[in-house]
């Protein structure tokens, strides 16, 4: 068998808005769907186009972005590492997200 002249480029999927459903989000953060549902209902995590803590759409229609996956993994880690209450983990995640956003703005200002 001859060696291909060009490498095979793996197809990569950008997880843009609405890319993840409830099962995807649970699977990618190594949690079960009940864990996600509870945190959506209490505003710790939120679906796209739904205000935090006020998801009215059926669960089958819930959609999440990459950002929510990063947040869900962060909250799962905080809950596990510190036995943190989900709301405390969410508060910590809020602060981490704000610090990261401010650091990016500061970096841009220092151009």
């Amino acid at each position, binding site marked *: 068998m001859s060696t291909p002249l060009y490498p095979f480029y793996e197809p990569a*999927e950008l997880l843009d808005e609405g890319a993840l459903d409830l099962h995807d989000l649970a699977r990618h953060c190594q949690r079960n769907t009940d864990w996600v549902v509870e945190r959506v209902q209490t505003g710790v995590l939120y679906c796209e186009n739904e205000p935090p803590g006020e998801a009215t759409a059926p669960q089958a229609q819930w959609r999440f972005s990459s950002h929510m996956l990063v947040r869900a993994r962060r909250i799962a880690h905080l809950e596990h590492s510190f036995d943190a209450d989900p709301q405390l983990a969410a508060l910590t995640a809020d602060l981490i997200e704000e610090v990261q956003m401010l650091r990016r703005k500061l970096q841009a200002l220092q151009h």
Partner: protein
Amino acid sequence: MEYKDYYRILAVDRQASADEIKKAYRKLARKYHPDISKEADASQRMAEINEANAVLSDPEKRAAYDALADAPRRSAGAGGFQPPPDWEGQDFHFRSGDGAMPDGDADFSEFFSQMFGQGARARHAGGGQHRPPPDLRGQDQHASIELDLLDSYHGAQRSLHLRSTVLDEDGRPVARDKELQVSIPKGVREGQMIRLAGQGGQDLGKGPAGDLLLQVHLRHDPRWWAEGKDVYQPIALAPWEAALGGTVRLATIAGEFDVGIPAGSRAGRKLRIKGKGLPAATPGDLYLVLGISLPEPQTDAQRKAYEALAQAFPSFDARQQGTGQGASR
């Protein structure tokens, strides 16, 4: 295989109580949390700390680990640490769901995998006295990738070198290096994820492999930056271009454009070029952030030109006007 001293990693002694281990773990988890820590090796240290905690916080695993430490070492030359012969008989419960770490043991060492993780599971799956492993889906693997903003505009191709632990024919974990050629889709933004289906970990049965998830980080570039789908680029104007306005040819991240500069533009003013931000179903916008570059007078004629300017604006008070930079972002 390198022996891991979990007590040293958590900085506790062997007699430490469960509570002391928990406190030591939390203290280190806070120090090396990858989101906060400024330590260069924070991610690696965090993985070590998680691994040590996964063993020492579980009484069953801790007892087995202590017994392992007490057993005569079979550490041998180039092969490093070898488990004692009767280690095959160890049995552990592997939790899943809410009790597990978010990443399972995907980031743990070969030592952990051999003693407590996939390797242990594989040995228990073999030998006939246990059922064959279920065909579970493999674990997802997470990594980050650093890109330039231009890569997001045009798409890119990257070669990724990944190291993972897989099981050999005898069910023993071995480190495997993998090289993946990846097409980076256009329009990726800071913090987004790229999913490569089936390129993650493989479980013991015949289930499908997990996915590889790459979190995107955009390199800092003083020439331009992105906020969501919108892109900002500082553009310098001559004082007369800003004052008088006109059309100027500008080289931007999205290509060259003739841009109309409104008369009386101040530093910090933003001009929007619609739809020339990052590619998307509804593309972002490109904002040109105006700055004014003052030429330094070198000749008598140039100095006189500034003097004439001053005379033409006798009542202009720059201190009252401000720099205009306050509105730049």
